[in-house]
């Protein structure tokens, strides 16, 4: 880590390259499978089978298949004890390192909301039912939220300081944004970033209890939207000082050029209806990237499909950008909370590189209150050069990043 910042003269402004990525989500394990599903606008939401949902309004989620996680690590005693969140992270990191085998992060910044929560549930349920818990030491040791990140580094032979952001649903985008700033200010050259979350009963029931989850399909920005479905997964990005990456001839997947964060103090779980929080985050991201709103070709929206979120976000997008193409990919894979921003950043990079706009599936009828250009139901061919990816969370946390293709 280097000190290249002078608060009087302003920070060093290094460009920030994405030199590798890895992803596991309901769309698939790995970039190739994810791209295929994304192109097909595949609905990957399925009935929940991990825990009872009979008493919930919602009974579906985007889920990562267990068989995708089976081969990500050796079948030894220690590995078998790891939480699914750890396995997802190991899988994502292994894929990233296949593209950049020498990538050695000086810092790891990742996001999560609940880490290995289900292990805590197993422990508590066993305690309630039996008063004892024979398996509990392993559950307890592998439950903490930061464990999946530490496990992944260890499994892949890496070691770096690990900052795990728990900013609710904005965590993944906050992590990428902070990692971007760390390189941009010249303090670091290589930062591993992303997010992870595995579906858990407590969180699932929590959203259901708030009536934020839908018994219907997840229909972002639809006029008759009725809520979100949850998801899970992990995604990681290797960020590197652009000049350094270019000098060593690295393949550069995309460039992160801007980041904006805002805090909306309206309510713990509901955004200010005016959309001021999302708007500030997007404005700050544009300012950070030194771009005018007209330079943005596509927005990967937070778009949870809850009435309040989509109204606030949609209003802010319409006011700031006019009719820019917008889609939320959560209809396809669900809302993976702390992983969402990271997965959506990967999806946005895939879209930029492969010249299409991801579909906003399950869209039937426009919301009369929102004047938006929704990429409805099918991917749209396009050659976007700059995209914005949004994530907003409980606690009023809002985050936006700008991702660009390489300038000619």
């Amino acid at each position, binding site marked *: 880590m280097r000190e290249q910042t002078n608060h009087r003269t302003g920070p060093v402004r290094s460009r920030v390259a994405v030199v590798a990525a890895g992803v596991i989500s309901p769309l698939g394990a790995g970039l190739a499978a994810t791209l295929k599903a994304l192109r097909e606008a595949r609905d990957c939401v399925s009935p929940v089978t991990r825990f009872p949902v009979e008493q919930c309004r919602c009974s579906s989620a985007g889920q990562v298949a267990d068989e995708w996680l089976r081969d990500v690590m050796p079948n030894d005693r220690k590995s078998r004890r790891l939480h699914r969140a750890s396995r997802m992270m190991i899988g994502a990191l292994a894929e990233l390192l296949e593209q950049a085998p020498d990538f050695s992060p000086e810092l790891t910044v990742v996001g999560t909301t609940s880490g290995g929560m289900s292990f805590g549930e197993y422990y508590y349920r066993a305690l309630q039912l039996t008063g004892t818990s024979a398996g509990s030491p392993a559950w*307890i040791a592998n439950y903490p939220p*930061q464990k999946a990140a530490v496990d992944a580094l260890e499994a892949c032979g890496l070691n770096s*300081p690990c900052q795990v952001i728990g900013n609710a649903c904005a965590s993944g985008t906050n992590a990428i944004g902070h990692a971007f700033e760390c390189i941009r200010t010249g303090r670091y050259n290589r930062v591993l970033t992303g997010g992870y979350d595995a579906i858990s009963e407590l969180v699932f029931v929590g959203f259901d209890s708030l009536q934020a989850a839908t018994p219907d399909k997840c229909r972002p920005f639809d006029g008759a939207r009725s809520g979100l479905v949850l998801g899970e997964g992990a995604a990681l990005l290797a960020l590197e000082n652009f000049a350094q990456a270019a000098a060593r001839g690295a393949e550069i997947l995309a460039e992160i050029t801007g980041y904006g964060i805002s805090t909306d103090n309206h309510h713990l779980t509901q955004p200010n209806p005016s959309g001021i929080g999302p708007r500030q985050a997007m404005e700050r991201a544009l300012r950070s990237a030194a771009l005018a709103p007209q330079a943005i070709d596509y927005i990967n929206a937070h778009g949870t499909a809850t009435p309040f979120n989509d109204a606030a976000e949609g209003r802010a997008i319409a006011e700031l950008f006019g009719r820019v193409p917008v889609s939320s990919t959560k209809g396809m894979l669900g809302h993976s909370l702390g992983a969402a921003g990271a997965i959506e950043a990967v999806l946005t990079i895939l879209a930029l590189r492969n010249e299409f706009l991801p579909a906003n599936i399950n869209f039937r009828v426009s919301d009369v209150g929102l004047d938006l250009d929704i990429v409805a139901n099918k991917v749209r061919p396009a050659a976007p050069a700059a995209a914005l990816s949004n994530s907003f969370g409980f606690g009023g946390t809002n985050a936006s990043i700008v991702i660009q293709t390489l300038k000619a």
Partner: protein
Amino acid sequence: MSLRPAGLGWVTPLGRTIDEVWAKLLTGVEAEGTTFGDSLGGKQSHAFPVPPAAIAEANRHPRLRRASAISRFAVLAGLDALRDGKLELDEVSAARTALVFAISNGGVIYTRRFFHDIVKSGASAASPLLFPETVFNAPASHLAAILGITGASYTLVGDGAVGILALKMAEDLMADPNLDRCLVVGAEETDWLLCDAYRRWRLLRPEPPIEPFARPPKGMILSEGAGAVLLARKGDLALEHIHAGGNFAKQTELVRQLDMVCGSFPAKAAVDILIASANGTFVDEAERATAAKRFPTAALYTAKPALGESVAAGGLWQLICAAQALRTQRLPPILHAPAGSGLTTVRSSAGKRWRRAVVTTCGLNQQLAALTLRL
């Protein structure tokens, strides 16, 4: 760029104001323990709670009406740090202030209550009032709302090292010239479930005291509260170096990793004080070995026998202890330290002015970090 701790605040089992708690630590006062009898496993656990009188002021804030204990601790510590720094935020200054929270176990009381209803009665009994307070960033959200902060607010999760990791993040954030200050808060609450979990993890002692540096280690006692540090660009103390450490795969690797971290500090010969995270567990031996090798002349201190192990809050408490020791040139006795160790009495600089302290935090779940503080 060295950040300056410009305001301090803590809510602890020994009370709240900086001077009051420091005076108690200097006179060897130990927090009063409480017994949790609600354990379903049939075993009682002990912890050091925050006295209710210390947080009575929290009731004044409408935003905290339904908030969990951890949010109350965090908000009061944060407000105290601003008060100590003689700073009253308005719209302009709030916009130039960032917030970084450190959390480990988080809102365990509401989380347990919420999930208990699910286990006992099914999902339809789950309370929508409790769920939002279980989210890791709920305390940060409450404090941001009360202070009017609309910019950067981050909650970091981790083990006992997360407090220093949060300070490191604050340092990185302050590379932005648009920020004048960053308020870093670490907070934790405890109940019987947490004690039960740490006991099954074989890290907890059945009852007080915490006996630091005992061989073999005898275990820790959990506590709760919050610590807050207002970091600015001016002040009498400087955070010289913050090393965000790394991760240790096995307990046996901790000694090597901590030695590597502390070996990276320049001017290590001039370290006068080492504020350790020793809590009666395996971390004690690593810190003892590092102290002997790297800082042989430094005065050693851990507040955990007096205050308990408060995980995320603990790292901030350690920094506050370092600041107080440098400012007052006195170091409290380490309660229940081994006889003949010379650690059980009040130490003072005695003519040679203490100028530099090292703070080491070794978490129980693979993370470690350290920093140096200079007067």
